[in-house]
């Protein structure tokens, strides 16, 4: 009996070595192509909480790569997108797998906190690392030090997005605001703080501030505190599991104050059925509902839907996804075909009003995120979303 236990354990230990070695052997790739493709290694989340944001962006990148390849690639080299679904758990392993597969450009998930392990791995190896839709100025030297020069995002930075929300709200005549801050991510915190800064700078008043953290069952406390408050607007920059209970909960309690959210609140995947979403506003990159004023955006929605087995993209992140490929192609061409991280980063830092799918992109040595895009202000009433208008930020928000 005692020996049996020892052999069972020895067997388990051997299984460790054998299974790891077996999986290692199956990972080899061929490097015999004369003109190697330019491989974008996408360490993204396709099944967990960031999937509604990452998946449309990834599809747009794949779509754009296909178009580039149909036109002969970049200097005869095909663009190839290799994907690793890290499910927000194994970002570093995913990055290493993609590097092993020959990736020379890194692509990461749409939030800097979740993306950081993969970003760090890519930039440690001198690779240009691009995020389609990280929404803060942290994707760059500010968070990653000197090596962060290799990290860029095509998302709007929070200073821009929060200002757009505040300016639109103030422009609607809403003067008294409640802010409900989600402490889960720096992005949500930044948007909430910067909304406050810009809204008060314009002359508005913050009448109440509440906090909660997604995935910690603290949203009910915020609902009960905000429900009795009389205000003109509630700024609620968040995504994830707080959306449905907050929006539905307030309406069920008879509070019909307009709610304004950032791009995190895009999409209809979270809408509760009863009570339906109403008087809910958000700013985003493009409408996914086919009513975007730009026909190119509506065409992109159809194309992404086609490769997504008939499902419309969950959020507007396909827009910056398309921008990513536009910019990458231009950078590689500008670098005369080089894919070295430093060379490409220097090219991107030269972008001053670069014309991409969504509009003009400008980077600098310190800011590697986008400002100045025209936001789509969307409204949802009775679970029907509608494009309202464009809004371009007049002045970036700053907390001083």
């Amino acid at each position: 009996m005692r020996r049996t236990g020892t052999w069972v354990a020895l067997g388990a230990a051997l299984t460790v070595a054998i299974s790891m070695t077996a999986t290692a052997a199956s990972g080899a790739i061929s490097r015999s192509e004369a003109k190697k493709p330019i491989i974008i290694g996408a360490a993204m989340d396709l099944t967990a909480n960031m999937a509604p944001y990452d998946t449309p962006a990834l599809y747009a990148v794949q779509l754009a790569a296909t178009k580039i390849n149909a036109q002969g690639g970049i200097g005869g080299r095909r663009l190839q997108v290799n994907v690793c679904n890290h499910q927000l758990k194994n970002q570093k392993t995913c990055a290493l797998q993609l590097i092993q597969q020959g990736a020379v450009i890194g692509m990461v998930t749409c939030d800097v906190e979740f993306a950081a392990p993969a970003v760090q791995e890519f930039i440690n190896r001198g690779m240009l690392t691009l995020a389609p839709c990280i929404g803060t100025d942290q994707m760059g030297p500010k968070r990653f030090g000197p090596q962060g020069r290799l990290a860029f995002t095509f998302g709007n930075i929070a200073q821009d997005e929060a200002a757009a929300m505040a300016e639109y709200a103030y422009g609607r005549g809403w003067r008294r605001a409640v802010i409900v801050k989600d402490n889960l991510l720096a992005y949500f915190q930044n948007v909430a703080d910067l909304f406050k800064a810009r809204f008060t700078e314009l002359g508005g008043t913050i009448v109440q501030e509440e906090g909660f953290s997604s995935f910690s069952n603290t949203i009910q406390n915020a609902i009960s505190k905000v429900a009795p408050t009389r205000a003109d607007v509630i700024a609620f920059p968040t995504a994830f599991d707080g959306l449905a209970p907050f929006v539905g909960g307030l309406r069920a309690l008879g509070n019909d104050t307009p709610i304004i959210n950032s791009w995190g609140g895009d999409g209809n995947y979270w809408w509760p059925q009863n009570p339906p979403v109403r008087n809910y506003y958000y700013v985003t990159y493009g409408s996914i509902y086919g009513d975007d004023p730009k026909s190119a955006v509506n065409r992109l929605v159809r194309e992404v839907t086609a490769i997504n087995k008939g499902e419309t993209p969950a959020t507007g992140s396909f827009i910056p996804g398309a921008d990513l490929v536009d910019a990458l192609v231009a950078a590689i061409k500008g670098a005369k075909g080089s894919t070295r991280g430093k060379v490409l980063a220097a090219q991107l830092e030269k972008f001053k009003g670069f014309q991409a799918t969504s509009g003009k992109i400008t980077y600098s040595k310190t800011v590697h995120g986008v400002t100045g895009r025209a936001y789509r202000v969307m409204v949802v009433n009775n679970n029907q979303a509608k494009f309202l208008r464009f809004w371009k930020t007049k002045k970036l928000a700053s907390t001083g």
Partner: protein
Amino acid sequence: MTDRRGSLELIGPVLALALAGIVGSTGFVDPALENEFKGALVSVAIVVALYVFVGNSGVVSFGHVSFVAVGAFAAGVMTVPVALKPTITPGLFAFLGEHSVGNLASLALAAVLGGLFALVVGIPLMRLSGLAAGIATFAVLGVTYNILNNWEKIGPGPLTLTTIPETTGLLQATIGAIAVVAVAFAYQRSRYGRKLRASREDPAAARAAGIDIHRERLWAFALSGALSGLAGGLLVHLAGTLQARDVYLDLTFLTLAMLVVGGVGSLWGAVVGALAVSALDSFLLRAESGEVGFVDDLLGKPLWGGSRLVGVALFMAVVLVFLPQGLTRGREFHLPRLGRRRAVAQESSA
């Protein structure tokens, strides 16, 4: 004679870890898989640290990842280059923001802080037993997480700490895991370890024999906390980034499951459980990514996303149904007694 035979129990864990270290460093292994090997070795360090208290005392602790977290944050914050701290963690206390230490010093600091923290919280908690002790340690985990996730004077708060030097290579991971195993082994063979195990088997008899159960548990808790802190240091220097969520519930349940799968009553069980679950986890992750040829051939596509979590949970359930005491049945490693078997065979033939 008994002591010599007992010392052989250390051979199995050390050989298993050395084997993992050697296989991980061979040319057959790609960088991603090498990272998985390092991760498995660090998991062994965490699970064995947990075993030092749980295995020897019989008291379940849901809070040990607190000490891993303290070690990880201490080692992480103190090794970010000073020049980068003002931009990456601008809110730190001055004494943290203006100093950095090297790899080894950071690991020592992680162990010391983990041990001290465990000692302090252990003074009241070690008077508890059973479910009350488990819940109380879980409360410690919750408090620790919330402090680390919000207090920007001692860390990055809710942000991800970046630019941490990735110094946990295979050698450091292997040596670290073996060191933790050696300390755990030495402790369980010491009179302190034996006293604690006696109190685990029969508290009343142990008290009657003059054993101060509270004191013995407290020392074990502090030692376990120090080893957890060290493991946290290894972990953060492996990852290169750190967020409070990385050292919270997922890691708690995963490491407890590793211990239970291997066999909570033995050091060998802790090592086997950590390696086995790490291997399965790694295999399923690769199968999901389409990296395992035979799975792709079998299904005609990669394994479904999310299969990894289901697979690990199913494995645990199956092990616990068929081997309730874990893969090792709660026993230490023993070399097969070939000599004795041969002698018995000779006697019977004569």
